[in-house]
């Protein structure tokens, strides 16, 4: 079963109440063809478990890594992902769009 938006936010609350470090990622801007609309959420815990999505699976790995930093430092981050750069092994969106993702700690 796919996670619904309510399930994602509920998981964020439950994980935090269980004493885990938790971060919430939100798509705040998109340009061109973007797989998930503005407002889409992804919740991540300190061990890298996650629920929801901010892209079609292209950049979740990178967002999870950054989220673990955010959980440690407590400082929000704004991430931007563009077209995948094949030669540089950088993650990106193969669909050709650009997205900006806000990652914040749940505290």
């Amino acid at each position, binding site marked *: 079963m*796919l996670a619904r*938006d309510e399930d994602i936010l509920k998981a964020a609350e439950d994980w935090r109440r269980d004493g885990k470090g938790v971060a919430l990622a939100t798509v705040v801007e998109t340009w061109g063809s973007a797989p998930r609309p503005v407002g889409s959420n992804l919740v991540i815990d300190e061990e890298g478990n996650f629920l929801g999505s901010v892209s079609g699976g292209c950049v979740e790995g990178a967002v999870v890594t950054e989220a673990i930093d955010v959980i440690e430092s407590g400082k*929000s981050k704004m991430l931007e992902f563009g077209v995948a750069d094949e030669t540089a092994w950088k993650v990106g969106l193969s669909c050709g769009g650009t997205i900006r993702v*806000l990652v914040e700690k749940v505290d």
Partner: protein
Amino acid sequence: MDLKILSTLNAERASRRAAIVVTNPDTSAQRLVKGEDVGRDPIADVLRARLRSGKSGMEETPEGRVFLTVYVPPPRLVAIGAVHISQALAPMAKMLGYDVTVVDPRTAFATSERFPDVPVIAEWPDVALPPLGIDRYTAFVALTHDPKIDDPALLHAFAKECFYIGALGSRKTHGRRLERLKGQGASDDDLARIHAPIGLNIGAISPPEIAVSIMAEITGALRQERVAARQEKVA
């Protein structure tokens, strides 16, 4: 995000109430505005427009650039008739993210064995529907083929601004239904809102195929802005 904001947001979502999270992207300052409190907020006009569209996004406001995450209730499907089509429709709608309720006063039909995963109310529409709080985030389908059950249910749906209203039946059956509903006070605007025969015309035969055609039509109604934008592009 503050845990208090998050848990208030979750409580509002669980009660099918809209809410907006206002975030300053530069300072990370954040507040939650409940749907009912939007009118009292300093940026009420902006928030009202966002609630109507249901879309999240950046906005320039007198208090600076803010990001608005808009949470409107998930769409809901109310099906009148615990019939064969509903048995296929209910799980399909659930998979598409709808909260589903089935209403049928005939207790032989309205059983949890036939509908294992959704609430089934074995009551007449006049008893079952008012407490459901049917709203503009609700798709409403009348599937019993029985005027005693479908007609009063449709009259209730007209009054509640459902984003989709559909009714099962051939053109001929629907013609007779329009006559009856008119006789019971339905306006021409109300009657024009009924999608009947229900569903997109894809030549569906089996109940699951009919359910696909209904869910496709409901999806089109839910996403009508996108549908219109695409048609404009083609034209």
